[in-house]
């Protein structure tokens, strides 16, 4: 009788262990997913803030109008946090790519990439607008 009871207790202990392990796995999996999503969202926000900062004084459209791609690369290098890789593509209203040079600080290698899409209106008296696509990734 005592042996049978001890068997039941073992089963209960086993169940308890399974529950605890299952809970731990669930919580840690949830936290991992959340931290990745947060990281990507923060990166998109940082990218949008940088483009906004450049556009606020008309610099963004001035770089594009002048075709000053190296200047734009330097500006992005300065404004984006260290360790963030970027690749920028500029399209005109007909969605044709207009940047003749690559505006990037290095290639992406297997990182999760975040896209920021931005409409940039030119201050030029002859009105134009551009669609700027900024790809971002945290360098690992």
């Amino acid at each position, binding site marked *: *009788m005592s042996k049978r*009871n001890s068997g*039941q*207790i073992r089963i*209960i202990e086993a*169940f*308890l262990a399974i*529950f*605890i392990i*299952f*809970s731990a796995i*669930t*919580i840690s999996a*949830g936290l991992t997913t*959340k931290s990745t*999503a*947060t990281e990507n*969202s923060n990166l*998109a*926000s940082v990218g*949008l*803030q940088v*483009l*906004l900062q450049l*556009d*606020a004084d*008309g610099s963004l*459209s001035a770089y594009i109008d002048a075709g000053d791609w190296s200047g734009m690369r330097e500006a992005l290098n300065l404004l984006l946090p260290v360790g963030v890789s970027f690749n920028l593509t500029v399209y005109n*209203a007909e969605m044709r790519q207009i940047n003749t040079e690559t505006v990037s600080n290095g290639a992406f290698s297997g990182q999760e990439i975040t896209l920021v*899409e*931005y*409409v*940039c*209106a*030119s*201050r*030029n*008296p*002859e*009105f134009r*607008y551009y*669609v700027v696509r900024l790809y971002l990734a945290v360098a690992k």
Partner: protein
Amino acid sequence: MKKFNEIFRAKSSGQLLIVAALAIAILIASTTMYVYELTEEKQAQKDGTIGDIVLAIKTGLRNTVISALANASKGGEKTVLAKNLETLSSAYRRVYQYGICQISHKLLNSSEYESGIKLSWTNIGLGISSAHVAFTLKIFDLTSNITVDDAVNVTTAIIVGGYYTVNGSNGTKRVSLTCHVLNEEKPAQAKNITIYYEGFGVWIPISDLSTIEWGNGTYNLSFTVANASDTVHVSVHLTDARSIFVMANATCSQA
């Protein structure tokens, strides 16, 4: 013995209940915590994203107004503002597929503004080039509905005043002008200044213009003219750093 077994079974069932309750509590607590935190995070991210989009659209509208004012102040049609705003709105509708994005604008039409643009270039030393657009931005998606009412005002103004002194030797006049440049009532920088004076009924450009920039939107301009009349009529043509043109005429008397 039978009594002992009954007591033991009762004891075991109590333990089982406690363990089961503990397990269920852990499950419920972890699930609740997870769902709550995820919802909170998603809401914060969403608010941030919408705020950034509103700011981006406002910046785009402002740049469009600057572009249209620069065009109209250089002789372009005033209707260019409405046309450009419509083009930009359609671009936003196409690109921002975050939710349904609607931008409606209202151009100021009054005694001074026509199609949202005012070009008031006077003969009393004050010149104003201005544009005003009121807009309503609506962003709809499944869970939120945001409406932003705001206005964009872009104004470049100059205030010109001055006097002249007569050069004793050859009778020419040395004209000294002070020009204040303002963007939205704040000191601003000029990109280009050209001055004309009226001689024999025509406006003659100044060739020996001497300029001192004080760095606070104030410019001291001086030049020499050969003019027989008691007063010197001058016309200051200025383009600011945003390529918006403005002009003002002024009359200078002897100091």
